[in-house]
């Protein structure tokens, strides 16, 4: 059963990767990366059970906590590049 679950997750990762490759907008890529991160957490958890080394759940926990930062960093990047494009005063480039 673990095998079935992990196979489905790996298939989904494949689909998410395809979406990241196709784009077309930059938001699709960010969405795909976010999806990929969630699937990574799930796969790590399932494989930890599959191998019987459940002490390695720490890894999945690390990703569950940290993946969020990447998306937020992207948002800050968008925001600052929009501000810069709007030519806010005091922004010398």
């Amino acid at each position: 059963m673990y095998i079935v679950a992990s196979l489905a997750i790996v298939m989904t990762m494949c689909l998410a990767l395809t979406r990241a490759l196709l784009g077309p907008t930059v938001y699709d890529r960010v969405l795909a990366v976010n999806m990929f991160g969630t699937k990574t957490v799930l796969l790590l958890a399932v494989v930890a059970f599959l191998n019987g080394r459940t002490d390695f759940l720490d890894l999945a926990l690390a990703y569950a906590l940290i993946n969020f930062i990447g998306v937020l960093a992207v948002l800050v990047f968008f925001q600052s590049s929009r501000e810069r494009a709007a030519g806010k005063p005091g922004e010398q480039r």
Partner: protein
Amino acid sequence: MIVVFSLFLLSLLVVTAIAIVRSENLFSAVMLSGIFSLLMALNFFILDAADVALTEAAVGAGVSTVLLLGALALTPTEERRRKRERKVAATLVTVTMIFLAISYASFDQPRIGDPDAPVHRHVAPWYLEQTPELIDIPNVVTAVLGSFRGYDTLGEVYVVLTAGIGVLFLLSAGRPGLLPHRREPRIESSLKSHLIPHVVGRVLIPFIVLFGLYVQFHGEYGPGGGFQAGAIIAAGIILFALLEGEGAALKVLPPRVLVGLAIGGALLYLLVGVACMLLGGNFLDYSVLAADPVTGQQIGIILIELGVGLAVTGTLLSIFHAFAAREQ
């Protein structure tokens, strides 16, 4: 069955790498390299390297994306389009030839996972055999990292520190002082105006730092150690900087403190080694730190892991702030 996964994930790795090189927009290349890092961690995990996978997770998910985006904010994100050049074709041919040569050479290599391969016949069995006896901690990786090959790790910590100092030098040129100083308040790019991410992020920060501390001090018993913990804690504080604006993060942890952490951590490692010499042992031979050699080894490993954690946190955060300060 796990073999099939492994093959599949390895193939995805190659696809992603090709996509990174082909994409003309640097932003999407950075996004794809985030996926590359996730895949890399999964592959490490399936190849039984839990510690390495945790390191890749800690570094790749938080710090690496943030640094690349910080640099992209200072450079054009679009790669200039150009006609297909002759040089590209020639390179492609050369690269393919070398790839074929490597593949051909691989037929003489031991199969992956072969227990009789030369790698497994050298010092590794000795490490696995002696760790419970000499150091008595479950995680052999931490034992080798901290004690058996402590010299290597010392060198690596100083390489990280040197790279951090280099970044500070390069990015602080043209302004007074080496450290990025407190600046005039300005319109900062923070997520303060976004209520939901702001609240959720603030809830998350203590858990990330707590988890970092757990990884730091649980490194003897499970996957973890100073390098992973340093990267995770740095990621937590970077999250704070993203939410509250970079100035607020600098107020909590000023540049001086960060540089102090980096240098202090590296010095702590060195001083543990010197203390061993003063107590009559060899450099970085922790057995002399306590009456019982095994306890001495454990104390030594905990101390140097602490030094590594401090140095990595300080260096990564200094690098992050150096990029952010350049943005204005």
